[in-house]
């Protein structure tokens, strides 16, 4: 079991480095098209990591919907506006400094999050007088592994999606409709 764990970890780190590298490049490229493509590569890296984290269906969706549809839309718009390459598309120093400074602050905060291990969270929630039953919020064990085992990768996602989360599911469809109408109205020259 230990070797299997280390192998996936190594693969995980490979993909992690890949994702971070492409994300970094995506931000720094002056050409919009280049950063779009680097973003696509980040998404692929993430899809791979999803698979490692036993979320195979979501990985597929990620590749299909996210990388496929959304990024294609981005590419399409970039092509449409045929933006020429803008040298050092960064803002003047005050915005730049603020941006990096803020990112640093955010980073340090998130690092402290690292100490919030699930055990500590469970302990804190259980001690705090909250109306919610802690066990409901943090069920033990890898409930996910049991579910995929019984219903298969897609089933484990589909069953709660279409039963527990049916209403949000329908709401998203309304949301998408609104987005489509909005996009049409905004982008069209004259109705």
């Amino acid at each position, binding site marked *: 079991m230990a070797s299997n764990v280390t192998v996936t970890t190594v693969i995980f780190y490979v993909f992690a480095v890949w994702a971070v590298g492409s994300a970094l490049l995506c931000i720094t490229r002056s050409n919009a098209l280049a950063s*779009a493509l680097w973003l696509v590569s980040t998404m692929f890296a993430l899809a791979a990591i999803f698979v490692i984290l036993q979320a195979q269906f979501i990985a597929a*969706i990620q590749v299909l919907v996210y990388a496929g549809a959304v990024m294609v839309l981005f590419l399409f718009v970039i092509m449409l506006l045929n933006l020429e390459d803008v040298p050092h598309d960064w803002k003047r120093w005050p915005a730049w400094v603020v941006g990096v400074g803020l990112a640093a602050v955010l980073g340090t905060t998130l690092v402290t999050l690292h100490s919030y291990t699930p055990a500590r969270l469970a302990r804190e929630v259980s001690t705090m007088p909250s109306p919610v039953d802690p066990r409901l919020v943090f069920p033990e064990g890898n409930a996910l592994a049991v579910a995929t085992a019984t219903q298969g990768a897609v089933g484990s996602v589909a069953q709660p999606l279409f039963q527990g989360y049916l209403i949000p599911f329908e709401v998203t469809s309304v949301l998408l409709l609104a987005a489509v109408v909005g996009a049409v109205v905004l982008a069209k020259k004259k109705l």
Partner: protein
Amino acid sequence: MLLGPSLALSAVLFVLGVAGVLIRRNAIVVFMCVELMLNAVNLTFIALAQLHGVSGQIMVFFVMTVAAAEAAVGLAIILAIFRHTQSVDLTHINLLRG
């Protein structure tokens, strides 16, 4: 389980996304950075979904739909602005002055 490392990775990606949004001038790239931030969040959902049940993954599902809708409308707006000002540079667009 890889919970720790994936959370760290998502933190890094998120920070990069925020930095990108604050630094870049091109509206579309800013949009992309927002997408990047969303992906970082998805990663966190997935990482914790292992432990706390599949609802995490469903949340990712919803995040994706929202992201898609947001991208569509956002790009339409950028298109409209571009038609108006022939530029996507955020610093030039300040018609909504107070």
